[in-house]
């Protein structure tokens, strides 16, 4: 009886993978506008305080930025491969790629911790007396730096949690070779976080 009910219910499960994907993209557009507003603020202030921005950006360590860029790019690779793996019905490989993605996300945060610690210990953090004694352009640059990379780091943290949930869904076969839209949508989110960083890296670390 129970089995019968279950099979009947199963056949009537409403599923709309395309709809789910459209929903995810709509959410990503709100993210784009959220960060877009900040990029707009950056552009206007850079236009007004170009010389100070050039001066301040030299205080950032390109090495940290570069390593984190490579880490995120690689995490995007393993994320994409995880989806290919589950669609080819290799669950173990998919879990491995996803675990690697989460590991790279963690590595990114560890790197960020060391980078920010170094900044804090040299007296550069929002509202520090050292920073407030600087010209206005430098204060604005570091304000944007901490808010934008901070909000991005928050997205990485949230991404880690989402990917961790996906990992257990994979493990318990909730996500499988037929039903993988959740993994795809999580991947879309993860790649967006990567794209944001692709722009943050040159704007803050490279352009002097």
């Amino acid at each position, binding site marked *: 009886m129970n089995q019968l009910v279950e099979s009947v219910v199963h056949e009537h499960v409403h599923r709309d993978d395309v709809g789910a994907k459209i929903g995810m993209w709509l959410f990503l557009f709100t993210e784009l*506008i959220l960060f877009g507003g900040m990029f707009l603020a950056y552009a206007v202030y850079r236009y007004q305080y170009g010389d100070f921005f050039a001066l301040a950006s030299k205080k950032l360590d390109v090495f940290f930025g570069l390593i984190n860029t490579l880490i995120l790019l690689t995490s*995007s690779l393993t994320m994409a*491969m995880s989806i*290919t793996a589950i669609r080819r019905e290799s669950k173990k490989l998919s879990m491995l790629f996803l675990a690697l993605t989460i590991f790279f996300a963690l590595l990114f945060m560890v790197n960020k911790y060391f980078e920010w610690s170094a900044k804090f210990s040299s007296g550069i953090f929002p509202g520090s007396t050292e920073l407030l004694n600087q010209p206005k352009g430098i204060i604005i640059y570091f304000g944007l730096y901490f808010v934008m990379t901070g909000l991005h780091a928050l997205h990485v943290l949230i991404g880690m949690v989402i990917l961790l949930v996906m990992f257990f869904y994979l493990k318990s076969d909730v996500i499988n070779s037929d039903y993988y839209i959740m993994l795809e949508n999580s991947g879309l989110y993860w*790649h967006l976080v990567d794209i944001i960083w692709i722009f943050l890296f040159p704007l803050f670390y490279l352009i002097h």
Partner: protein
Amino acid sequence: MGHGKNHIVNYSTYIFVWLTLVTLTSLTVTVASLDLGFLSVLVALGIASLKALLVLLVFMHLRFDDRMFRIFVLISFITLLIFLVLTFFDYANIR
């Protein structure tokens, strides 16, 4: 689409795109050490846009998905571009 066997991207395609992204990253770092003046902003943003495009098309599957998604994304980026350009109509005359 979700039920159908739409395109499964090969590992090798992803690895090729990743290699391109890493190459572009080292290119942008190298170029930044040269002093190109105003051009350096354009070059850096150009390379970043190219990288973002690769991620969107291949990693985010836009190339293989329904055309509707590409139009969606295009419209949202154009919207953002309009914000940027119109804002600078205000600021261009101030300095």
